[in-house]
């Protein structure tokens, strides 16, 4: 088979894996931490890595997967040299930062993992490649192979996919939770042993959203545990698409993209903004699709607001809807020189459309005075940031109870 056709098959079947981060590339030149994105595909997802499968020949039969054994599709496999050629040629032309190599399970997990390692080793040693390498750990592969993968790769990941381990049996009859958690836990120990400085190395995982009835609470609860106990760098969330029309899985007209977006926002709040899960979600609850989780939190805690912008601490400021890490830092810098007024926000390039209900400026409040959160909700709805997800018409809902009072 021609290389072009192989690439067509093995990139098409790799596309469902969420991946973006490449900021911890071993090639480092600038002090900026943000990774470099080279392009964005028609679905608006960032393209920074050559994301391909080593093979789509699979012994497993997972209900959600395009490559499952029972699907009648064209099958093929790359040779290690073909992958090295594509990676280095694409890298030289500045198409990509590196390689994201995943695979179906050919013969058995160890056989596949060994081939992936062989590819990574060749790429580093024979081709002298210094870019970024991400390797998927094949569930069930042995410890020696996992250690080897960690040494070649900047990051590794084992995909959990299904948050509820009891449902895993029916959806993925060949996989057990143990086959996933054991390598992950082993990788955690090895990574901290090999990369003491912590800047390099690391692992991530992916959870499918909407394939089971698991609530956002259940998903985020798992994510929080993974960050704490498995020291994961990232958890990715992937809106479920029922490609196989499998009866074990729900028939969705469209992937739940806004829900996926909300999960990423909640994930950010936990990872970067120091929120605890129970501040954002009650047990078995789903995230509000109308408001982002920080706004929702603030609406539930109106008693904490408004805060005086010239006095609030950094930790308080980053909890104000519409103010992020960068904004809070700018505010703290600028207020050393003068008391900030609402007009100054424009100069700082901080939007106050949301924040205005939660802040005072020099004692002056520019929002509305109310104890009824619904009134603020109505005003906030008019300003919606999520218009990139046009599928969700429910954004136009109004809070009728608030309409009786004056706005």
């Amino acid at each position, binding site marked *: 088979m021609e290389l072009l056709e192989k690439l*067509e098959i093995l990139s098409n079947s790799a596309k469902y894996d969420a991946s973006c981060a490449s900021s911890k590339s071993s090639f480092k030149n600038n002090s900026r931490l943000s990774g470099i994105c080279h392009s964005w595909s028609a679905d*608006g997802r960032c393209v920074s890595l050559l994301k391909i499968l080593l093979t789509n020949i699979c012994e497993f039969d997972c209900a959600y997967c395009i490559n499952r054994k029972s699907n009648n599709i064209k099958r093929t496999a790359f040779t290690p040299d073909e992958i090295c050629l594509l990676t280095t040629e694409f890298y030289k032309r*500045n198409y990509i930062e590196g390689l994201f190599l995943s695979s179906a399970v050919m013969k058995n997990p160890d056989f596949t993992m060994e081939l992936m390692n062989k590819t990574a080793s060749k790429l580093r040693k024979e081709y002298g490649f210094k870019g970024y390498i991400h390797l998927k750990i094949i569930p069930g592969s042995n410890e020696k192979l996992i250690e080897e993968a960690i040494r070649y790769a900047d990051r590794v990941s084992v995909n959990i996919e299904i948050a509820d381990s009891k449902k895993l049996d029916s959806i993925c009859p060949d996989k057990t939770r143990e086959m996933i958690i054991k390598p992950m836990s082993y990788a955690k120990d090895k990574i901290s042993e090999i990369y003491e400085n912590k800047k390099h190395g690391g692992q991530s995982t992916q959870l499918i959203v909407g394939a089971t009835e698991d609530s956002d609470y259940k998903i985020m609860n798992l994510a929080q545990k993974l960050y704490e106990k498995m020291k994961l760098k990232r958890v990715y969330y992937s809106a479920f698409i029922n490609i196989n029309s499998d009866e074990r899985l729900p028939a969705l007209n469209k992937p739940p993209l806004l829900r996926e977006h909300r999960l990423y926002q909640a994930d950010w709040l936990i990872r970067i903004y120091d929120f605890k899960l129970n501040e954002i979600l009650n047990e078995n609850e789903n995230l509000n699709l109308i408001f982002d989780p920080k706004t929702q939190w603030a609406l539930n805690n109106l008693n904490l607001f408004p805060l005086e912008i010239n006095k609030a601490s950094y930790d308080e400021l980053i909890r104000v809807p519409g103010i992020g890490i960068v904004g809070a830092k700018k505010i703290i810098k600028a207020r050393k020189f003068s008391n900030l007024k609402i007009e100054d926000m424009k100069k700082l390039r901080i939007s106050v459309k949301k924040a205005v209900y939660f802040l005072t400026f020099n004692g002056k409040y520019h929002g509305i005075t109310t104890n009824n959160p619904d009134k603020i909700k109505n005003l906030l709805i008019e300003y919606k940031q999520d218009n990139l997800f046009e599928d969700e018409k429910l954004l136009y809902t109004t809070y009728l109870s608030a309409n009786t009072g004056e706005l």
Partner: protein
Amino acid sequence: MNVTYDKSFEGYVTALKFALEYENSTISSEDVLGENINIKTQEEHDWAKAFYVELKTIYLSEKEGFENIALNYLRFVKNDINKKNDITNKWVNLVEKIKKSYFSELHRMKGFLRFMEFEKGSYIAKISTENNIIEDLGSYFKKRMKENFIIYDEKRKSIFIRIKDKSHIKKVENLIFQKTNEEIKIESLWKKFFNEIAIKERTNEKLQKSKVPLKYRKTITEFINF
């Protein structure tokens, strides 16, 4: 009084030092109406060390009247370096904006620049940017790759050329080159990959457009002849 200089970065820094001595002075590269003083470029710029990044970025932004932006900025911050953080001040604010525009564009182009092979083992890329970023961009790629390359700035008719360990920038009139056969093959592989990687059920061209603005697409391989 207006101070004129020879358009070089060193000349501009010299002019700044000179103009700062006078309250109502201005700077430009050409003579303006009224009194003009042409200064001789000096090489010694230790006094400007603390503002180097700002002054250089303002210069490279090539914004109209950038010399006077730098001059007013210096008048405000030079006696108290902490004032660089007073971002509600008009001049500090403007300079922050210029810096942001410069560094965002530089960062963006580290991703968007596309090389093509024009002879075995040598690569060329074409850029057309708002800010004059070729020097910073060139040094970035010098570290990123070991191959010889040329970056051609279409707007400014200049090239950054790297051969082995050496590199320099020079002016060019026109640049004509041809892709190698290998290049045509690799490009078609890349375009194939780029097409396949998008998930149809998630198509969102509005999002894609906000990430890859149309003005940059004319030099990005995967968006050409699609």
